[in-house]
């Protein structure tokens, strides 16, 4: 039994099956991008254990194909197991060993990246200084205490916690927060314009004049969900009312509790940095006489008091800034070139592909070179 299992898990047939299944998955995942967009297709096909049918909805769903993690995982196990079982040191096999060792590094690195890499954006107007980046795909509800004139104390409640509902307590907050309603994607309307049947849930702040309509999740590449929640603030003295928090409501809403002033805002999740970045200048060059972009560049000032760093940096196409584990890339621009968008990536395993590439290429060269030499030797041995 165990032997049969070991044979199966180390077999070359399994490798081929995995490779072919991987091809089918990648093909399907590529075609699917036309309809559901690149991000959604990636989630469904590649960053999943199974591909489910139907693709969305919470109802009855069946797995129809192994997903990227499944196939990649089996391939990785197969690769390691086969080599562990059959490994024998031999110069003839050097190429093969190198190639597969490189592949193991690459697959493991890919898995690591999937698990631990964080991508976020930093959106800067000219002159802005920020010490945080934002995740455009995840929201958080920030409860900000503004009493201290020196700094704000922020308690951020992630979208996922709001989605679970119930009551939220935190040591930094002198009150409890009860989630009354949560909408993954929504549309807001003024209560006066909405038809009968829809009533405002909130009774405090500008949200009291607004009704919320739930809508299906956004699927387009550039579409985003408009996350909205209705929350009730309960102090030890009793309820202070219900607020509506949504990105669409604009400015933070203010209330007081425990003798202090608080603000409420739904905003993209933030990652704070131990340093700050200021945008000095953004340039958008075009080729003369055309609209074809030639270069985008942001001149930023990096200030890090811990490390006594205060310097100007130019971030431009293909020339990112790497600093303290974060990498800043020029990603886009807005508002007639007055806003620069930097992509901020934290990827602890970014070196894996570089190493893997060198190892595999060396392995393939050795292996095929060995074949080629053998082949030409045999040919030379033949009578002309």
């Amino acid at each position: 039994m165990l032997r049969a299992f070991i044979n199966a898990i180390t077999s070359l047939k399994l490798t081929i099956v995995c490779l072919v299944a991987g091809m089918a998955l990648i093909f399907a995942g590529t075609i699917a991008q036309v309809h559901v967009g690149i991000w959604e297709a990636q989630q469904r096909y590649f960053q999943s254990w199974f591909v489910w049918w139907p693709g969305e909805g919470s109802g009855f769903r069946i797995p129809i194909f192994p997903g990227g993690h499944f196939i990649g995982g089996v391939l990785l196990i197969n690769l390691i197991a086969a080599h562990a079982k059959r490994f024998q040191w031999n110069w003839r096999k050097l190429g093969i060993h190198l190639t597969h060792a490189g592949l193991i590094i690459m697959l493991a690195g890919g898995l690591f990246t999937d698990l631990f890499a964080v991508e976020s954006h930093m959106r800067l107007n000219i002159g802005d200084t920020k010490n945080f980046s934002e995740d455009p795909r995840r929201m958080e509800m920030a409860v900000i205490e503004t009493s201290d004139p020196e700094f704000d104390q922020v308690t951020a409640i992630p979208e996922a916690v709001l989605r679970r509902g119930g009551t939220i307590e935190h040591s930094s907050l002198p009150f409890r927060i009860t989630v009354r309603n949560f909408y993954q994607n929504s549309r807001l309307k003024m209560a006066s314009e909405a038809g009968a049947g829809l009533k405002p849930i909130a009774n405090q702040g500008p949200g009291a004049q607004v009704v919320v309509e739930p809508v299906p999740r956004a699927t387009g590449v550039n579409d985003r969900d408009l996350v909205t929640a209705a929350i009730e603030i309960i102090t030890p003295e009793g309820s202070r009312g219900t607020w509506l928090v949504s990105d669409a409501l604009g400015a933070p809403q203010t209330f007081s509790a425990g003798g202090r002033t608080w603000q409420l805002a739904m905003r993209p999740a933030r990652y704070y940095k131990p340093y700050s970045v200021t945008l000095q200048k953004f340039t958008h060059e075009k080729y003369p006489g055309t609209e074809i972009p030639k270069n985008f560049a942001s001149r930023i000032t990096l200030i890090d008091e811990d490390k006594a760093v205060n310097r100007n940096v130019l971030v431009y196409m293909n020339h990112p800034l790497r600093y303290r584990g974060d990498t800043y890339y020029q990603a886009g621009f807005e508002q007639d070139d007055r806003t620069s968008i930097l992509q901020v990536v934290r990827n602890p395993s970014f070196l894996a592909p570089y190493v893997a590439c060198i190892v595999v290429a060396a392995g393939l060269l050795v292996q095929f070179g060995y074949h080629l030499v053998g082949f030409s030797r045999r040919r030379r041995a033949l009578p002309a």
Partner: protein
Amino acid sequence: MKRYFPWLALLFAGAWILAALIPPRQRSDGPDLVSFGKLPVLVGGRIKPFDTVARNSLLIIHGKQTVALNNGETISAIQWLADLVFNPAVADGYPVFVIQNAEVLGLFGWEQSDRKYFSFNELSPFLRQIDEQGEQSDKLESVQRSAYQSAVLNLRNALILCQKLKNSLRPEDAHDFSRELATYAAAIAPAAEAASQREKGQTFDKSKLEAVATFMDRYETIANQAYMLTVPSPAGPQWQPVGAVLMEALRTDEIHPVVQAYAQIGDAYQAGNYRAFSEQVTKLQNWFAKDQERATKRAAFEFFFNHVDPFTHSMYLYVLAFLFACGSWLGWSRPLNRAAFYLLLLSLAVHTFGLVSRMYLQERPPVTNLYSSAIFIGWGAVIVSLILERIFRDGIGAACAGAIGFITLIIAHHLAGSGDTLEMLQAVLDTNIWLATHVVAITTGYSAMFLAGMLAMIYIVRGVFTPSLKKETADSLSRMTYGVVCFATLFSFVGTVLGGIWADQSWGRFWGWDPKENGAVLIVLWCAVILHARWGGFVRQRGLMIMAIFGNIVTSFSWFGVNMLGVGLHSYGFMQKAFPWLCGFIASQLALIVVAAMPLDRWRSFQISASSPRKDRGAELKFIPPELAAETTGE
């Protein structure tokens, strides 16, 4: 004859190529359009000669690089452009606009007939209609447009391009533009005086201000419409259109010599005074040679490159070589084989000249867009095939070289329809290191995949339909295919990973599941499947061939198919037109796979004559090469 045939073939082909290298000569009684065609202008961010602008514009508008007039005469692109910019009244009568869509014709109340080219004069009553219809379809994504919508939008864009060209050197209604400029120049100083008088509150002559204002309106209109930037600015790479320079003259009180020269050139052309035209062109050419030395040299070289047309020439040579190589399997094999090899060397030389010229003109590594990838794939595959031919000397490498060279150049030819193939690169692509490594490795991988597929096709076609697939040929085909797949694996893998590293450098994401990336990894995976299936002994010769043919499908999907999806970061060219061709290609490959899957005794090469003893049959069917058999047991 047998001995001399290859040399004779080379001699004729060489003479044909040499003839193409002779610079064009201008008819003595006509305008010197050769010199005019070499003058540099800036279009699309790049300095190029008028000749290139003329060819590319005509390709966009007309679909061809020459115009057949209604009187049976054929005119060149540069003559069309000269007429268009200097003598629009004549050019408006040329049938250049292509309309094939019946619904678009119906828009004008015309029935579909044999005619597909129409002149500006014929279309002029419907301009407003075309503009409205085109504007509506412009709002849609290209994937969403119907055939009618695409056709009417193309027509609108062609008319706009024409309009812009007409107003690039002078207003389209200008007659005796030199005199107009003189009047304008004379009016500047009095107008300036009047303006300063007005500022001081003194009495001033209003008509003097108005005289200049009329000119300014006129020049602003052409400045906004200009397609070509024809006047180099003394301070740096920014060239300007004639209109803008004329507006600036108000400040400098001086009309730029290049503008004046073009005015005189145009006036002479319009008046039919070709001698004056040629003299003025030569004068301007000398001015450019002194003031813009580099630009002038480059433009002149590009003119020569356009004239030589290397890719068309090598395309014909590839076909001829392919035919010779195939012929060599049927008989007269040595001389034909030799001839094919010599022709291929010549053709490769011409192909290389074209490739290197493009690199010089663009100052880039060889592959920058889909067009150049086709050129490069052909080039790479031809070189590898020639090496195979050198080793095996059986005509197979030569046939592959001829076929792939020809097909890729045909594909390139059809990809050139969208205008300048030396276009400027988007910001993220503006890096020679990655273009030279990632892109070259990936396209070399494509080359090798197509070559492996081609070898497999030869194996199957010769095996199934002819009796010519002997054991030795089959063995060497199998070895070649295996070797080429190894080569493809190496390059596809390295290219794909380098692409990932590039992405990591520019977006911070090694792998983004972008369609083009997925296409590349499909090739790598398929190569891995082929190699493992062979090492594991799951496939032998025929299986290897079938898999190599499937590799053609995978590669064509990766090269073209993913671009048709219209999504992702690499969608630098959505090609609706190529879709049926891609489907046809895939269908043909599937058909070949089915043919190859037929039982071996249906293959003509393996049919045993009735007289041969039965027991031999098995021996002849199973020719596993010894080298393969050894490896099968080795793993």
